[in-house]
């Protein structure tokens, strides 16, 4: 087969160019740390990488949501603890006022204290965190408890997304804490009235109501505890998911730098070899041998 000069030079140029393309791609991959620079490098992986990246983004948002819930959870726990303390005090007052060892002035001052406790409970019920009243349910812009204990929020609470297609309650309603089962405010207000009236029989009945409130409150405490615990669990699974997805993504997309560098040295050797051999062939031109 005849080899003509033009052909020789053309194939030299083509070979050199294709080597240069490979070297260029190798350097791009090393610099970016990714093996997939364009979707055509691996279309299936490129598509999956888009999906994974989006899932990671949404996971970050869900983590933020959980942060908010955890923060509110701490306030709820605090609030219910305070209610426990106050109810304990009220029980003490009830026990001492139900006995005959105390006179009406004692009972009146106890009534004042109970009124004070009611106002404190209203303040607790109107806890405001970052601009919203956490016991208001779906009406968190205005204080849900009036000073007489009337509740103007909602029993329903909003839902918050914590994972794809998964939501949990975003809070606890004041109605649940203060008014489901036994109405704490009504009980305490009645207690205060009975104290002022000095009605020992009624006071003894009130003690039962107060006990009921305390029971309900310890239920609430357990509920809040399990609520915050579930948020912790969700955090854990969110972070585990994050880790898995990050690992998968890195496996799919990251370049193996060591093998890239090895490839580069192979390619650059080939490149130099081609240049060298072409240079040597120049000396073999017939014009060098004719006088």
């Amino acid at each position, binding site marked *: 087969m005849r080899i*003509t*000069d033009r052909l020789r030079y053309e194939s030299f140029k083509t070979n050199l160019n294709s080597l240069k393309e490979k070297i260029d791609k190798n350097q791009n991959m090393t610099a970016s740390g990714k093996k997939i620079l364009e*979707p055509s490098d691996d279309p299936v992986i490129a598509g999956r990488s888009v999906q994974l*990246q989006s899932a990671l983004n949404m996971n970050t*948002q869900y983590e933020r949501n959980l942060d908010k819930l955890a923060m509110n959870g701490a306030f709820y726990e605090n609030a219910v603890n305070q209610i426990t303390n106050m109810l304990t005090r009220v029980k003490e007052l009830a026990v001492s006022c139900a006995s005959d060892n105390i006179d009406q002035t004692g009972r009146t001052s106890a009534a004042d204290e109970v009124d004070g406790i009611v106002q404190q409970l209203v303040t607790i019920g109107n806890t405001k965190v*970052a601009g919203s009243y956490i016991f208001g349910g*779906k009406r968190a812009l205005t204080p849900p408890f009036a000073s007489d204990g009337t509740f103007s929020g909602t029993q329903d609470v*909003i*839902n918050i997304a914590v994972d794809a297609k998964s939501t949990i309650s975003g809070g606890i309603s004041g109605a649940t804490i203060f008014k489901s089962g036994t109405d704490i405010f009504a009980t305490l207000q009645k207690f205060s009235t009975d104290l002022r009236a000095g009605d020992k029989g009624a006071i003894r009945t009130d003690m039962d109501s107060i006990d009921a409130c305390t029971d309900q409150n310890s239920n609430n405490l357990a509920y809040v505890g399990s609520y915050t615990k579930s948020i912790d669990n969700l955090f854990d699974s969110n972070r585990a998911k994050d880790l898995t997805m990050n690992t998968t993504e890195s496996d799919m997309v990251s370049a193996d730098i060591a093998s890239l560098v090895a490839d580069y040295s192979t390619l650059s050797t080939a490149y130099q070899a081609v240049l060298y051999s072409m240079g040597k062939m120049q000396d073999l031109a017939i014009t060098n041998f004719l006088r």
Partner: protein
Amino acid sequence: MSVSSILNIARNALSASQTSLQVTSHNIANVDTDGYSRQEAVLDEMVPTPTAAGMMGNGVTVKTIMRYYDSYLDTVIANKNSDLSEQKVNAKYLSRIESIFNEDNSQLSTNITNFFSAWHELAQDPTSDGARQTVASTGDNLATVIQSMYQDLTAIQGEVNEYVATDVDDINRLTSSIASLNNLIFEANASGGGSANDYMDQRTKLVKELSGKIGIVTFEDSRNRVNVLTASGRSLVDGGSSWDLTTIQDKETGVWKVGWMDTNGKAADITDQITGGELKAYIDLRDNQIGGFIDDLDGLAKSVIEDVNYFHNQGNDNAGVDFFKPMTSGYARDITLSDEVKGSVQNIMISSTTANTTDNDIALRIGSLVDDNPIFGNTISSQAFASTSTALNISGYLSINGEQVAVGLNDTLTNIAANINAKTSVTGVTASIATTGSRSKLVLTGAASDLHVSLVNGNLDPSGTSLLGTLDTLVPSSDTTALSLRGRIELGQDPAALPPTHHYVDVARTDTLQNVRDNINAITATTGISATITNDASGYHLNLFRGVTPVSVDGDTTRSLGFDGSSYVNYTAGMVSNVGEMSKGATALEQYQEDTMAGLEQQRATVSGVSLDDEFANLIKFQHAYQAAARLFNVADELFQSLLTNVGAS
């Protein structure tokens, strides 16, 4: 035989050597010329003179100047050039389109997730103005990204369009050059001067260039003229005349169509008949591929706009405020925030009721869209069934792009598919069964990107005696959770009315069974159909009545033909994969064509290429022959001298 004949021989030899030397020099000079075929002076004996001693030779003459070429190879190369040029254009533009869709550049799915994340942020913090602002700005970013991808795609489309016009001009230039070369070659042959080698080389080169532009068929006639036709049979070059292609521009869209001018000056549209070359690649890219990508982007924008607006309109007691500007076409081109939201972020709806000021159900629902499957595209698949040949016990109608296909209680998946395919010519939708493992799905594929399929109950019989079964295709496990089905319940027509009125109830994804019942009951006055909900072990059933007559339930109603679409992110990932796949294929094909072409060129060079080694050897050869012939002159001259000086001297 005489001294003068020796002189003649010497003179002929000299002339022959000179010609050979000139041809060799011509070859050497053209060593790098593209498309050049090496030439050789063919030497032959001169006609011998009969003498008493026998035939006496008369020296050498140049019979012809021969050109080394393989016409079969030239044809193959020209055809291959069509394919190669077409793939080069494809690979180049697909690579550009791919970088538009590359997530690293476009950040499309990142913007999508940012947008829906912002809604989640707003949902968990309904009182925050900052969160509202973020929703508005991420929405704006998403709209901007979609718009700019659209602009980039249409820009490429416009560029390719212009190249169509430019290429047609090139083609006309080439065909007229080929025609004039045909004439020159014809005249050269006719005047008996031997073949016009250089003209033929030029013509081969032009034919190769022409085939790169458009797929052609060539043949050479008995007079060495090359006739060129398009692959579909329109004449481009006929002997010494050429036929022009012309471009016709559609005034509205600016799209150039290719026409062929006939003898009467009328242009026939041949745009669809072009089979190869750059022109085909440009037309294909412009009309089919880029058009397809733009449609995909449009589908995404449409779904985002419509779905977000659908829920947003329900905010604040169905106040009807849009989040994105509503539109009926040009979704990807014009997507933008609504005027209300642009005016004030306080117009962003979070709660479905104004009473519950900090309720977040609207925001939550919109945020959750990212995990929904709202996009149907042009393929819908049903839920998976265990068998394609057992009766599904579903009755009703499928309304496919407006056409009704009945589904009977005894129909199997295969029957349903066959019934749908029987109406493909009307609906444009084909049905197939896709089996993975042991379960099979019914897959509907439409030609358009918007396939509208809705679930339908039985038809109205005006006489009132026909059965209106329960809504057999819906048996959810709760009547207060969203059905996640989108479609239309046809309640039939009132044929007495003029024009016949069409009664229906739309089912939206968020509708619960109770909503459907309420919607049906809202139009009882006009349709005569009322609905109730009953509950049994298999789930909740929607029962329809005409008047007070309860209608019996037919058969087992636990199955449904639920259809699922694709989520925004998956749809975007699909677009990326798709573009990547096409670009990869085009690059691979281009590489293959280039390699094949290189092989063919190598073969051609073997036959027609100039090797300097060869030519220099020839130079020396002919140089010696010339020297020898010159020496012959000397000898003849000496002979003459002897003759003249010695004979007749006194």
